[in-house]
């Protein structure tokens, strides 16, 4: 009787080990397949600490915009020889990418250090050949927001139109598909959800906040309120 119990016990352990071995090996799962997950944002770049992409305060004029990327077109128009309409992929694939850590300083008093990646605006504009009379570059956003810069500022600096921040694609609330990285300018010049770049000779043009009393140049080293 004792032998029978020992035999049953040994047999049950043996069967259990076989079951565990089969399941442990993954059964019908294919271990060679690797599924790519969404990348996580980086918080340090070349020894420099970065802010989180969630460290922004939501302060857009109409709340976060959700753009259908299939129908999205980036227009470059106005005083140019070749007006252009680009899809999101065309912008991403046809232009060289640049990355840079730039601090966004908001007039509300907060700031964030972010690694931005995108295309140079001057390269996008140059492709459309601006006319000599162009003096101002006006950016339009999906929510109706606008802001403008002198052509000299755009052409004379490495101004990025970002599609990535901290190595991840811009989330909708941060300006997907494109946000301007208006270096050395107050945060209200960093237009999000860009849909149009208009070249103009209207030096008196004022964007959304600029027409409500904010400085037109938006230089960081000066106050943002226009007296």
């Amino acid at each position, binding site marked *: 009787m004792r032998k029978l119990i020992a035999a049953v016990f040994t047999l049950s352990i043996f069967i259990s080990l076989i079951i565990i071995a089969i399941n442990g090996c993954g059964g019908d799962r294919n271990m060679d397949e690797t599924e790519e997950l969404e990348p996580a944002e980086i918080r340090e770049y070349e020894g420099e600490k970065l802010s989180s992409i969630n460290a922004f305060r939501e302060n857009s004029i109409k709340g976060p915009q959700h753009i259908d990327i299939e129908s999205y077109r980036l227009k470059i128009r106005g005083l140019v020889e070749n007006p252009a309409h680009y899809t999101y992929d065309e912008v991403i694939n046809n232009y060289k990418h640049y990355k840079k850590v730039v601090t966004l300083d908001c007039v509300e008093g907060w700031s964030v250090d972010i690694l931005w990646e995108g295309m140079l605006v001057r390269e996008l504009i140059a492709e459309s050949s601006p006319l000599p009379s162009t003096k101002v570059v006006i950016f339009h956003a999906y929510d109706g927001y606008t802001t403008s810069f002198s052509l000299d500022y755009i052409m004379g600096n490495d101004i990025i139109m970002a599609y990535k921040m901290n190595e991840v694609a811009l989330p909708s609330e941060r300006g997907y598909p494109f946000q301007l990285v208006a270096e050395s300018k107050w945060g209200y010049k960093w237009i999000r959800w860009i849909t149009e770049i208009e070249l103009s000779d209207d030096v008196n043009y004022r964007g959304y*906040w600029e027409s409500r009393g904010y400085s037109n140049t938006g230089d960081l080293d000066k106050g943002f309120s226009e007296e």
Partner: protein
Amino acid sequence: MKSLARQKLFKSIIHWLLTFLVIVYVVTGFGITEFRTVEALTLGLLTKNLAFKIHNNLWIPFIILLGLHIFLSLIRRRKKVVYGL
């Protein structure tokens, strides 16, 4: 007696001005951070830019009123101790 009444009135004015200033401080603060809501609630009267201007210029009167408020309270407390008022 007259001077005591005057002092009480002055203290009361300071108190209410300080209360008003604190409320304005809070409202203009919201006018900056929650500008969409505040602009709608004030029918566009308190814009973000105006809220900024008011908010940024309030700290001097705020400190003066707060200083006066504390000072008057201290005087009254001292009088209470000395004269048993």
